């Protein structure tokens, strides 16, 4: 099971960042605990922070960042191991609309690199703007699956 999990990245609504670690350490932690060598970590962490636009904040702690920035760190941690699938549980649930747009753009960029992004959301605006595949669930049962759906 742990080895299968390495192919899946997780993004949480409440970020789940470690407050006593810096941005870089939070991201590096995800590689370190699956046994990646130090030289790999040193190379991959700055690269992923560059991708999410946080190169200048790598030594800050989560408490010093805005909500949007914290979610970017969370995305960087989830994506740093280049998983096949990224599961995002209401990633914009704690963010204002403008910041949410930035997060969605980032997830879209990640999706274009070949990683499947599965996102759970109740945000009508995001679903309608993205116009991507929509799967609607009702009490755990799929009731709709559209290639380019909108919120109904």
């Amino acid at each position, binding site marked *: 099971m742990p080895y299968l999990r390495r192919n899946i990245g997780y993004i949480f609504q409440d970020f789940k960042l*470690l407050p006593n670690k810096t941005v870089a350490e939070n991201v590096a932690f995800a590689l370190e*605990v*699956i046994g990646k060598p130090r030289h790999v970590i040193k190379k991959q962490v700055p690269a992923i922070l560059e991708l999410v636009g946080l190169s200048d904040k790598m030594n800050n702690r989560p408490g010093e960042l805005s909500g949007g920035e914290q979610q970017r760190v969370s995305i960087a941690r989830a994506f740093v191991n280049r998983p096949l699938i990224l599961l995002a549980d209401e990633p914009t649930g704690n963010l204002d609309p403008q910041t949410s747009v930035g997060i969605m753009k980032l997830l879209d960029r990640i999706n274009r690199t070949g990683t499947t992004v599965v996102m759970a959301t109740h945000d009508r605006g995001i679903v309608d703007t993205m116009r991507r595949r929509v799967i609607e669930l009702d009490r755990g049962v799929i009731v709709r699956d559209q290639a380019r759906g909108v919120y109904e």
Partner: protein
Amino acid sequence: MAISPLYAVRETGVNLWRNILLSTATIITIGVSLLMFGAFFLFDYAVANATQRWEGGIEFVVWMNPEATDEQNANILDAITTSPEILDYEFVDQAAAYEEFKEIFSDTPELIEVVTPEAMPPSYRVVPVDPDADVVEELAGQFDGRPGVKTVVSANDTIRGIQDLADRAGLFLFIGSFVLLGAATLLILTNIVSAIRNRGPEIEIMKVVGATNWFIRIPFMLEGVAQAVVGAFLAWVGLWAFDRYVIEEFSDPDGLELLAGFQVSDNEFFTTSILVLAIAIVVSIVGSLVAVTRYLDA
């Protein structure tokens, strides 16, 4: 992929530091319990060495002159074997006496070098039918002063008292150390459970990103082992002091003759040290394994 030693050491250090007060209490408890455990063994070795010749119901020893004639030896043997008051005896010849001497004085090879087997007096270790002190004294007196006999030494009430006291004190130390070792195991468990709860969010992330169970467990288990090893070191220092300032003081050549031989050889001290370390590691692994399997994998 294997866990990196740097990561393991760093995380173990973090765990220990976060619970420094509990860690210190655990280390001290382990140290004291192992000190008692080790002291029991050292004390037992020392008493066994001091009373070696009085084991197995032997109540008096007839020491022969090394130069005694065959006839004199035969007369003494005849007196022992025909006496209805003597149940059993053991003859220790010069070679066996020399081996025993070498064992007792293994720490002082210079003494062994100057003594030869020929210089060792052979002896008869006698088990009387009735171990009553008065009877033994009267019986031993029958051999004292006979031709070829160097001296007759009897195990008096004091030696029996020492053996009895040593047995009781040893039992007390043994039981006490086991109770404390049980407490130490529970402290290690509590310490690790506390560390696991402190690091709950980190453990959650580790599981989410795919860290293996062993990768998560190892720093916590090392925490328990580290506490035990430091505790064992403290116990070792205490045992060294116990040997140096208590046991060796008793066996002081200028001290009581009765306690001559009350000492622990280097080999016995080494064996005890290894035993203490092994017990520490077993205790820590038991405590750690229970903690990680019950509270970490849940």
